[in-house]
């Protein structure tokens, strides 16, 4: 029987990704001088879980790296080895290597074997060098790797060791789980003792410590009796190692300790403590971890959102019908309808919130980047995040990563000054970089703030002149700062490895604008710069203005609308071959007749009979001629392309209260093409 394992790969990869991210986060937060034992345990568990998964799926390279990592971590969390900055660096490097290996397996990406090797070497070196560097108290226990070697003579012809594992009284479920887990390591047979306790006989190539480690997730290792059986005699070496104690002196480990323990006693006592602590943490995590979240594909969520959207429309239809009834005769029906309306609204909100993700998803990748970057540049940066729990639509969160990465990188590179310069300016040597997110009305505001030198007005103006941009010395600051978003604009004197790598500020601005967002800069010379991004909370819903041309209703995203007015016929002027313009407050705007573009029969072709909606996009204004305004409402944006194709001038569609479809105008494209608008032809 062959089971196709590949279907489980994705689950493993997803999980391992999360674990790696978690591990990195914890490592970065770790205080080297006084590490929190719970954090160390969490890091250890992450490494352990990845190792377990990798071994199950046969990714030997991942297993190898995690194994060394795990044993190092194990010793550190037990206090056998002191944590140093060197360790943290090595762990971070191994996290990168693991991520690379994982991508290698997942996408077939190239794997840098030298990097893998060098990390393995680094970890091994730490492993061996460990006891020396560690506190003298840790001298007694041998390095973890050794017991396995000690076991070597006990291996049978297949290289397997034989163990007899007596479990304490635990629930059948735990026994089954353990049996399944241990079964992955080798040949397992089950037995039961007279007092209902289960006994496993296991032939495996893994060491005893691994068995204990696995069991420790389910039960108290101290209550476990593991005996080496098997072909060769149990060679119980006198100075066996820490876990041997478990074998020899089971429940009453502390009392009359046999001779090998004597040396390790002090260490063992403290270890027992940490271990207990760690186990409690495990239990806790296992307890809520399983039930608190489930993994669901985005499609399913989107489908749910669609269905709820439908429900909202149906509910609106019922409301419309009921509105025509006599309220006195149908009082109870109306009450029910009101209740339905409330429930529907709540349901819609709840469902929409599924797509929301905390900003932490984005923020969590920056501490590492800032740390590496600052190290590379020889700067000192203290990185602070605020409002990481602020939620944003998943679609937007994924698209904000790149622009934000660029902004953070920019701040470290250009914003924060070198330590000497900061000292000279009377500031703290370490620069402060704050990444914050907060809700403001229907928007989320994400800010990157540094306390560096601020933007250099003169240099930006000089550079702008050099680039041929229209500038004047009397421009307000806000306008000057916006200049850095012009394409090809970089005030960096030297293009470094860090900055000037292709994505410019213009791309940042374009990306954010494409998401319906706004970028704003505040800067004070000598005390820092804040770049603030304001985004709508979700792309799935937008505030729309319903307009009517002929018999057709279109939707204008409200964000583009400045005002609407009825023009006097004297203000509308024809320009030969260029269409019409309209004078609005001493400004001549291009007039875009929607009926002409979409070939609709209008109520009237005369602009003075219709309504002009003044639109602005990318700094360009134009007046859209429509027949009438219908109203304003929030609409759920639907994709046209999923079943049809892109339509020029249309950015999407939505479903109105009556169940009909209405198209959403692509204002940016309309304005962009307005220059090419001629009297009778229209090409997008």
């Amino acid at each position, binding site marked *: *029987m*062959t*089971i*196709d394992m590949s279907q489980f790969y994705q689950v493993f990869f997803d999980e391992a990704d999360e674990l790696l991210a978690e591990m990195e986060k914890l490592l970065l937060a770790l205080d080297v001088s006084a590490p929190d034992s719970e954090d160390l345990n969490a890091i250890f568990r992450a490494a352990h879980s990845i190792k377990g998964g990798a071994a199950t799926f046969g990714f030997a390279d991942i297993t190898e790296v995690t194994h060394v990592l795990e044993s190092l971590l194990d010793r550190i969390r037990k206090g056998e080895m002191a944590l140093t900055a060197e360790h943290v660096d090595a762990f971070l490097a191994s996290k990168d290597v693991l991520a690379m290996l994982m991508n290698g397996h997942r996408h077939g990406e190239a794997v840098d074997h030298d990097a893998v090797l060098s990390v393995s070497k680094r970890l091994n070196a730490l492993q061996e060098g460990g006891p020396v560097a560690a506190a003298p108290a840790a001298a007694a226990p041998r390095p973890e790797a050794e017991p396995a070697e000690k076991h070597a003579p006990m291996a049978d012809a297949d290289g397997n060791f034989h163990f007899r594992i007596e479990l304490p009284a635990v629930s059948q479920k735990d026994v089954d789980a353990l049996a399944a887990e241990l079964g992955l390591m080798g040949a397992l047979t089950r037995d039961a003792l007279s007092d209902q306790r289960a006994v496993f006989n296991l032939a495996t190539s893994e060491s005893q410590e691994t068995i204990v480690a696995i069991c420790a997730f389910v039960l108290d290792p101290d209550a476990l009796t593991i005996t080496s059986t098997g072909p060769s005699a149990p060679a119980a070496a006198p100075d066996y190692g820490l876990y041997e104690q478990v074998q020899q002196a089971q429940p009453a480990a502390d009392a009359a300790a046999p001779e090998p323990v004597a040396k390790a006693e002090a260490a063992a006592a403290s270890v027992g403590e940490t271990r207990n602590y760690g186990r409690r943490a495990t239990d806790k995590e296992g307890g809520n971890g399983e039930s608190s979240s489930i993994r669901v594909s985005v499609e399913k969520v989107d489908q749910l959102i*669609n*269905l709820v*959207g*439908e429900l909202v*429309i149906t509910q609106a239809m019922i409301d419309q019908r009921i509105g025509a009834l006599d309220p006195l005769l149908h009082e109870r029906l109306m009450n029910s309808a009101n209740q339905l309306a409330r429930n529907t609204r709540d349901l819609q909100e709840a469902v929409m919130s599924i797509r929301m993700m905390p900003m932490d998803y984005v923020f969590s990748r920056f501490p590492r980047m800032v740390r590496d970057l600052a190290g590379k540049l020889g700067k000192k940066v203290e990185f602070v995040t605020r409002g990481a729990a602020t939620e944003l639509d998943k679609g937007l969160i994924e698209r904000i990563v790149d622009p934000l990465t660029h902004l953070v990188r920019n701040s470290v590179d250009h914003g924060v000054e070198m330590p000497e310069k900061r000292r000279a300016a009377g500031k703290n040597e370490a620069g402060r970089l704050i990444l914050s997110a907060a809700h403001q009305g229907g928007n989320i505001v994400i800010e990157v703030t540094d306390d560096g030198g601020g933007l250099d007005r003169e240099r930006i103006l000089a550079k702008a002149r050099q680039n041929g941009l229209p500038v004047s010395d009397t421009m307000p600051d806000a306008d000057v700062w916006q200049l850095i978003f012009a394409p090809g604009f970089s005030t960096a004197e030297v293009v470094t490895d860090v900055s000037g790598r292709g994505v410019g500020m213009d791309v940042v601005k374009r990306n954010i604008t494409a998401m319906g967002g706004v970028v704003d800069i505040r800067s004070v010379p000598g005390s820092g710069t804040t770049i603030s991004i304001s985004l709508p909370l979700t792309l799935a819903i937008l505030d729309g203005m319903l307009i009517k041309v002929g018999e*057709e209703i279109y939707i204008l995203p409200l964000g583009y609308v400045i005002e609407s007015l009825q023009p006097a016929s004297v203000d509308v002027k024809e320009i030969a071959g260029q269409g019409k313009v309209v004078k609005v407050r001493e400004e001549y705007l291009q007039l875009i007749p929607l009926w002409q*573009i*979409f*070939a*609709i029969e209008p109520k009237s072709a005369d602009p003075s009979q219709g309504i002009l909606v003044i639109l602005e996009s990318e700094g360009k204004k134009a007046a859209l001629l429509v027949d009438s305004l219908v109203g304003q409402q929030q609409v759920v944006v*639907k*994709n*046209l*392309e*999923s*079943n*049809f*194709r*892109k*339509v*020029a*001038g*249309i950015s999407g*569609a939505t*479903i109105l209260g009556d*169940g*009909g*479809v*209405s*198209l959403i105008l692509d204002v940016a494209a309309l304005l962009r093409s307005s220059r090419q608008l001629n009297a009778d032809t*229209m090409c997008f």
Partner: protein
Amino acid sequence: MLTLTDTARDQEAEKPSEDAKEYLAFTLGREEYGIDILRVQEIRGYEPVTRIANAPDFIKGVVNLRGTIIPIVDMRIKLNLGEATYDQFTVVIILNIAGRVVGMVVDSVSDVTMLKPEQMRAAPEAGTAFDSDYLIGLGDLGQRMLILVDIDRLMTSAEMGLIEKLAA
């Protein structure tokens, strides 16, 4: 081993359906057409559509099908057959092709028929409103003759303009 037997069983299960296939018969003008029933998602009445500006006239527009927006094409206009009138008897066949949903307006839907290979005739080079590229063949039902249309090819063709072609 498990996968092997499964595949074998699948193949066996498929065999009869390879012999005889079910077709949905519909009429356009005076001709009777057949399309693979497995491509048909549902059959609905005609509802008012939202017109798409500057689209070819056979693309009537888009409608809301339980929350998804789907295009509606009128084959009568496309093929110049019959009268393109819309009343309560007008029928829309909702097709599911290449993961996309599209509605097709026809004159009427008659029935679902099983066609065995021996009932299939080669498609004529000319004589139907369809380009012979989109025909599978003719189905001989004694009194009736079904023109079998390769609906996948037709709906995904550049001619229909329903799907954005990279090269286009």
